[in-house]
C-alpha cells in the first residue's frame, strides 16, 4: 500500500456510522481519563516528599481539594464511559483488536488488577486521615497510583499499535513474547499524556465554576498551557518517528482532523492565556477551554483512525460492519439513552435543589 489518502468519510456508510459513534464515545472517555491521569500526577507532585502542616494552604487549595475529592468518581466515570468505545471498537476492529489482546496475554490482562489497585489508591488519596500521615506514605500512594494509571495508558497504546502491525502477529506469537515495541509508542504516549493536562484542567475549570470556588486563576492555567506546549512537541515527534504516520499526515484524508486538532489547540491556548493573565474564570472561558479540548481530542482521535483505516487489512472488515448494521436494537438503544439522560438530569436537579435547601 503506497497511498494513504483514505478519508474516514469516504468509507462505506455502516463503517462511517460506527466510526463516528466510536470517536464520540472515545473522546468522552478520554476526557475523564485525562482527569485521572493528570490529576493523580498533580496531586502527587504537589505534596511529594512533604508533610503538610494543618495550616498549609495546599490543604485548602480548591484545585487540589477538588481533584482529590472527585478522583474516585472520575475514575468510575472513566471506566463506565470506556465501555462504549470498547463496544464499538469490537464492532469495528474485531480481529485486530482481539489478536492484539491475545498476543499481549497476561501483560494485557494485568491492567485489570492494576486498575483495581489504582482505584482504591484514589480513595486513600481522598481520605482525610491521609493528611495526618507522614510524607512518605502519601508520596508512595501517589506514586503508586500514577504508576497504575500510567501502566494502563501505556498498555492501551501498546495494544493499539500491535493491532495495526498485522505483519508481526505470527512472529510475536511464535516467539511467545507478550509485549510490543516500536518507534511510535513513546511519542504516542507522550502526546496523550501531554493532552491529559488541558483535558483535566478543562473539566476542573467547569467544576470550579459550578462550585463557585475561589482560586488563583493562573495556578490552574499554567498546567494546560504547559501540556499544550508539550503536546505540540510530542505531535511533531510522533509524526517524525514513523513513516506511515508521516505519510498519512501529509495525505488529504487526515487534513480535516489535523485542522480540527490545531484549531482546538488554538482555542485552548486563547482561553488559558486569558486565565493565566489574571482574568477570572467565567462561564464562557470554561466553555471555550472545554470546547477546545474536545475539538483537539476529536482531531487526534480522528487522525488515529485515519491511520488505522489506511492499513492494508482494514477493507476486509467492511462486510462485518454492514452485517452489524443490519442487526436490530438501535431504536431501543436510542429510546433508553434518551430516557436515561432525562433521569440523569433529574438526579442532578434533585441533588442541586437539596444542596441549595440545606443550611
Amino acid at each position, binding site marked *: 500500500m503506497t497511498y494513504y489518502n483514505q478519508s474516514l468519510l469516504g468509507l462505506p456508510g455502516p463503517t462511517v456510522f460506527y466510526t463516528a459513534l466510536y470517536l464520540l464515545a472515545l473522546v468522552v472517555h478520554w476526557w475523564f481519563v485525562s482527569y485521572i491521569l493528570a490529576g493523580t500526577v498533580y496531586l502527587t507532585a504537589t505534596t511529594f516528599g512533604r508533610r503538610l502542616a494543618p495550616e498549609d494552604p495546599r490543604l485548602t487549595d480548591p484545585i487540589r481539594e477538588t481533584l482529590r475529592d472527585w478522583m474516585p468518581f472520575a475514575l468510575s466515570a472513566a471506566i463506565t464511559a470506556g465501555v462504549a468505545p470498547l463496544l464499538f471498537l469490537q464492532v469495528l476492529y474485531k480481529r485486530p483488536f482481539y489478536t492484539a489482546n491475545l498476543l499481549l496475554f497476561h501483560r494485557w490482562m494485568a491492567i485489570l488488577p492494576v486498575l483495581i489497585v489504582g482505584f482504591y489508591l484514589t480513595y486513600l488519596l481522598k481520605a482525610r486521615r491521609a493528611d495526618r500521615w507522614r510524607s512518605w506514605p502519601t508520596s508512595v500512594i501517589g506514586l503508586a497510583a500514577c504508576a497504575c494509571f500510567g501502566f494502563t495508558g501505556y498498555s492501551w497504546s501498546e495494544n493499539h499499535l500491535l493491532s495495526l502491525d498485522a505483519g508481526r502477529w505470527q512472529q510475536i506469537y511464535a516467539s511467545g513474547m507478550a509485549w510490543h515495541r516500536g518507534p511510535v509508542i513513546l511519542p504516542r504516549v507522550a502526546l496523550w499524556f501531554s493532552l491529559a493536562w488541558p483535558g483535566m484542567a478543562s473539566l476542573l475549570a467547569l467544576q470550579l465554576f459550578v462550585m463557585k470556588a475561589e482560586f488563583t486563576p493562573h495556578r490552574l492555567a499554567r498546567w494546560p498551557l504547559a501540556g499544550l506546549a508539550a503536546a505540540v512537541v510530542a505531535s511533531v515527534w510522533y509524526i517524525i518517528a514513523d513513516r506511515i504516520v508521516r505519510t498519512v499526515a501529509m495525505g488529504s484524508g487526515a487534513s480535516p482532523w489535523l485542522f480540527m486538532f490545531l484549531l482546538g489547540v488554538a482555542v485552548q491556548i486563547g482561553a488559558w492565556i486569558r486565565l493565566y493573565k489574571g482574568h477570572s474564570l467565567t462561564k464562557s472561558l470554561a466553555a471555550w477551554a472545554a470546547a477546545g479540548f474536545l475539538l483537539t481530542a476529536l482531531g487526534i482521535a480522528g487522525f488515529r483512525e485515519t491511520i488505522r483505516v489506511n492499513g492494508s487489512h482494514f477493507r476486509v472488515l467492511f462486510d462485518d460492519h454492514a452485517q452489524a448494521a443490519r442487526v*436490530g436494537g438501535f431504536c431501543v438503544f436510542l429510546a*433508553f439513552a434518551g430516557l436515561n439522560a432525562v433521569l440523569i438530569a433529574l438526579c442532578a436537579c434533585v441533588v442541586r435543589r437539596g444542596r441549595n435547601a440545606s443550611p
Partner: protein
Amino acid sequence: MSFPEYPINDYGPLMKGIVIGALGIFHVFIAQFAIGGGMLMCYFQWLAARGRCPPARRFLDGYFKVIVLVSFVVGALTGVGMWFTAIQISPRTIGMMVNEFHWVWATEWTFFCLEIVSGYAFYRCAARLTDVARMFLLVVYSLAAWFSLFWINGILSWQLTPGRWVETRDVWAGFFNPSFFPSLLYRTVTSITIASLAACVVINFTSGLGREERSTLVHRAAHFLAPMVFMPALGVWFLWSMPEDSRSWILGGSPALTLFLGLAIGASLLIGLYAMFGLLYQRLYINGATAALLVSLALVASAGGEFVREGARKPYSIREVLYSNSIAPQEVERMRLSGCTLNNAYAFRGDEGFPNPLLRTGSGVFRVLCSVCHTIDGINGLVHLAGPWSIDQRRMNIAKLQHTKTFMPPFAGSAWEVEAVAQWIGWNAAGRPETWPASAVDNETLHQIKQWLDEAGTMPGGTRSKLENLSSSP
C-alpha cells in the same frame, strides 16, 4: 464464512473454563449484591422516612458505602474484565455476541451511566437531602441496577437457548429466548438474598449501634430472604426451559454438573432453612461470623449455579451456532478434509522440541480443538482422561468424539490429525520421552480412522435418533 484464526494461549495446568468461571462467579456475585442492595436500601429508606426503624438511616449510609467501595470498584472492573477474559478464552464467541447484541449492550451501558450517577449522587449528597430526594435517588439507582441485569440476562440466556433466533436471526427473538424469564426471576431473587445476607454482615460491623438496634435491623433485612421460597419453583422452570440434552447432563448425565447442581441446591437450602426458621420464624439474632458464613454459602451456591449454567451449554458456546472450541457446525465437514492445523497460523508456537512432526501436529490439534476445555495433564487433563486407553481406543473414541461423550463436539480435523493427537496424548502420558516410535501412519490405520469419522458423521451427538442410527450401522 471462513474460520477466523486467533492466537491460542497456553494456561498450563489451569483450565480456561476455570479462569473465566472464577472471574464470572466473582463478578456475578458482586453485581447481584449491588442489584439486590438497591432494592434493600429503598426498603430501609422507606422505613427511615416513616419512622418505623430509627437506626435505618445510619445503617443505610454505611451499607451504601460498602456498595460503592466494593461494587463500584471491583464490580465495574471485573465487568470489563469479563469482556477481556472472554476474548482470551473464545474470541469468536464474544465476537459473535457483540455482533448480534451490540445495541443491547449499548442500552445496558446507558443504565450503567444512570447507576453510577444516581449512586454517587446518593453517596456524596444523601446527608443533605430530604427523605423524598433520597428515595428518588435510591429508586433510580435500583431500577438502573436491575435493568443492567435485565439486558445482560438476555444475552447470556441466549447462549444456552437461542430459541427462534436460530431461524429468524431476529435480535429480540434471541433476547426473549425460552430461558430469559426464569433466569431473570431466579437471578432477581438471588440478588435480593445476597443483599439481605450482606446487610446482616454490615449491620454487625456498623459502629455505634446497640444490640437492640442491630437486632431490629437484622430482622428487617431478613424480610428480604422471604422470596427464597420461590427459588425451587424458579429453578425447576429454568431447568425445564433448557434443551433436553442439557437438562439430562445436569440431572445425572455428567457427574461434575450434577455435583455442582447439588452444591448449589444444598447451599441454597441451608440458607433458606436458616432464614425461614431461624430468622423469620424464631426471630433469632445473627452475629457477624454467622452472617459472613451465610454470605460464603451464598457464594458457593452462586458458584455452583454458574458452573451448571456454563456447563449445560456443552458442546456449544452458543447453542446450534458455535461449538465450545469456536468451530461452527457447518465448518466441521470442510475441516475433516482440510484439517484444522494445516492452514492455521496459530496452531504451532515456534520449535517446541517434539521428537517428530506427527507429535507436533498432535500438539497443534490439541491447541486448536481441545485446549479451550482441556489441559494436557492439569485440570480436565487429556493425559488423565485418555492416557490409559490403548492407541486403538484413543483413535476410535476421538474419531467418534461426539458419541464417545455426547457433550463433546464432533472432531473437526482429518484422519491424520486424529492419529496425531492420539499419539500426542500417548507421548505425554509416557512422560514426553525424547524419542517416539510412531512418526508415520500406515494407510490401513488412516483408512480405519476415516471410516470411524464417517460413521460418526459431522453432526453433534446426543440425540436418540442419531445414536440409534449409529448403532444400527454395520
